[in-house]
């Protein structure tokens, strides 16, 4: 799948100003509070950056056709991921739950029927994210889905910078598809999926498709990437998108 166009294509320094503007324009008080918490300064070294790993499980890949089923997040820093602060919500999708996604997430119709709507837990989610940089694995899910879901409910979307661990892997392996000649020699493409990327850093196998575990897995992956390829002094603006 091709990377979708980023909602913002401004300079990487622009995020804090953008947040001030978004805070002014926001109508929903929860969004207003979220933006008012501000954006981490672009020059902040990774060592000092407050981060939050974010993972959504969805009924499909298209934000206009599919819905969010569950949300997991864990605040962290490059130094440590605090498990006790990890959160997980199952939310009721607007669109019908496909049988195929049930088998992937293990979330059933019964779970969904009892689950709240995203708008009921939005305040808690935004509180946990406020003042932190979101870290995701594959930026075309969390941010666009969040944006569409809020537009649907509040008539206004959401925007924020993300660090994408998959984009980092893609950058590290620009030639991950072997040439025909390499294929003949038996070379396999380099996978930049979460589980495969983790394996390259000696990170353990975690069972996939639980939003909180995936968020933790993503946070660990960023820690590993930073330790291997960047420095603690690397500015966040070099990584966020």
């Amino acid at each position, binding site marked *: 799948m091709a990377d979708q166009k980023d909602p913002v294509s401004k300079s990487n320094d622009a995020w804090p100003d953008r947040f001030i503007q978004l805070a002014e324009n926001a109508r929903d008080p929860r969004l207003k509070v979220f933006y008012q918490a501000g954006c981490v300064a672009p020059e902040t070294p990774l060592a000092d950056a407050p981060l939050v790993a974010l993972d959504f499980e969805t009924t499909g890949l298209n934000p206009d056709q599919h819905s969010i089923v569950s949300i*997991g997040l864990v605040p*962290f820093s490059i*130094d*440590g*991921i*605090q*498990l*006790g602060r*990890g*959160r*997980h919500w199952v939310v009721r999708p607007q669109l019908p739950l496909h049988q195929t996604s049930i088998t992937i997430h293990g979330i059933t119709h019964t779970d969904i029927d009892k689950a709240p709507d995203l708008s009921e837990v939005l305040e808690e989610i935004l509180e946990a994210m406020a003042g932190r940089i979101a870290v995701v694995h594959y930026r075309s899910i969390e941010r666009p889905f969040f944006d569409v879901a809020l537009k649907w409910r509040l008539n206004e979307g959401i925007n924020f910078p993300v660090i994408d661990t998959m984009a980092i892997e893609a950058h590290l392996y620009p030639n991950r598809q072997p040439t025909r000649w390499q294929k003949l020699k038996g070379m396999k493409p380099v996978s930049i999926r979460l589980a495969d990327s983790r394996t390259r*850093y*000696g*990170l*353990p196998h*975690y*069972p996939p498709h*639980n*939003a*909180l*575990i995936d968020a*933790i897995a993503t*946070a*660990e992956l960023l*820690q*590993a990437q930073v*330790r*291997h390829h960047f420095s603690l002094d690397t500015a966040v603006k070099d990584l966020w998108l």
Partner: protein
Amino acid sequence: MQAELIDIRNHLAQHAPFDEMAEEMLDKVVSSIEISYFRAGTPILEFGQRNTWLFYVRSGAVEIYRRSGELYSRMGEGEFFGQFGLMMHKTVRFPAKAIEDCLIYRIPDTVFQYLWENDENFADFADTEGRSRLRSAVSRREKSNVLMTSKVTRLISRKPVSAPCTVRLQEAARIMTDQGVSALLLMDEEGDRPKLKGIITDRDLRTRAVTEALPSETPISEIMSDDPITTRARSFIFEAMLTMLHNNIHHLPVMDNDEVRGVIALSDIAKYESQSSLYLVSNIYHQQDIKGLKKISRDVRDSFVRLVNEDANSHMIGSAMAGIGRSFTQRLLELGEEKLGPPPVPYCFMALGSMARDEQLVVTDQDNAMILDDSFNPPEHDAYFLALAKFVSDGLDACGYTYCTGDIMATNEKWRQPLKVWKSYFIDWIDNPKAEALLNSNIFFDLDGIYGRTEFAEELKILVAERASNSQRFLAMLARNALNRTPPLGFFRTFVMEEDGKQNNTFNLKRRGTAPLSDLIRVHALACGSRAQNSFNRLKAIAETKLIPDDGVGNLRDALEFISIVRIRHQALAIEAGREPDNNVRPEELSPFERSHLKDAFQVVSNAQKFLKFRYHSQVGRHG
């Protein structure tokens, strides 16, 4: 704890000591975890740094060092470190470094302290003093065997039955029949209070009185056993058992100071031990030929496995197996004398090595020798003793005690010599010590007379005890030899770790564990002039002389016990699985409990070797 974290909890729950932790407690641990990633080659903890975390290795590998930079241990998935510092002013004592990319789950000090106070199993496991942890491991095991926790007085069911030692044979037999006892105590009633003078048993009546057709008026004092071996009322049942096994006696008066409290019989103890090694011993004496002995030798391994499964300690098992081996030897000597006629001059048959130390197990060869009376005249007498030695040696081999590859057997002319020659051997070994020669003669410093004129062997023990303690050069040489075999550092994954960081798949628990320990205990015992042969008894003697500080002796005892038991269990498991038992252990066969306590025990051995080097080395310089 969030339910989604169950997989993280499950990982902890697969590893000791979290595997035995209550669920709520484990949830508390998981919720407190902070995850950190360390790249291979980066330090995790540096000496003197402040640290308020316990580190659990989720993936990867970590090396822990001493302050000197020496490798202390290597940790892998599911193991933790950092507790030393948490117990010591939150300051790092043992630096740690990631040697592979590592994902570490950090547990905060507050939770560590909570677990320490509320989970005994965790506290034992995390104990920074490996030695007190070893102590509790050893005593926990010993507490589970009734023979080791109950006093002999528990076996006394009636008042002692006695008679004055002046009674006649017939009267004694009548009292025993009337009272329904198999042993009668004979008292000296001359003084103010009657004193135990002798004992007569059913067996004595059969073998001495009846077979020799003694007149019924024979004074009992002529056939009774004088000054019988006794046990104290404070003794544990297993100590009484050891005494019976060692001396091949079936009745033991229990003494409270000078007063007899009662008599315990073999059958009283055997009740506690389902497939009694005591019965096996008495059965050995009923066999009339090598064929019969060979047949019952098959029961030795069953008896061994039974003792292990009943949680007997290593002293008990070692003594039981040595007692059985000794009995085979003694019976073979009796049968040999029946076949070859009475010996032309008196002699003593001597056991060496593990049998002499009462530390025999099931994988063992025979080590023996003969001390002949000084009137021995080779052309005239040696044919007899060679034939007898050969008869015994072949018989032992048939019963599973294979020939000694080093030819330390009475069949070797060199080890079939009169007492005066033996004395000259020992004097030469002690006065002119040569490292190489001592390596080969080491085994003679564990000796025990087991048949015939056992006082010959006692004379040698006295000679050794007096002479060795005064020869610093001899002790220094012996100490140097005792350092030849060192214990491993510990374990990492499925490997044995050596001090230089090398990893092996297997190790020999005798060569790397029990043997270095008994070697170094022997040096100290000889230095303090002890005549004890058993390592535990030697340790008692060492403790009395204060040659080593008390806790040092206790540590050695615990280490010996723990390593021995792991070795014994390893052999018992092999027997039960139908395999040939041996001493080679693969780390994956060890439980986490055994691994961590073995590491503690190896540490004790290693420290004791350093002490030995220091204690006896300096004297080489001064004297030699």
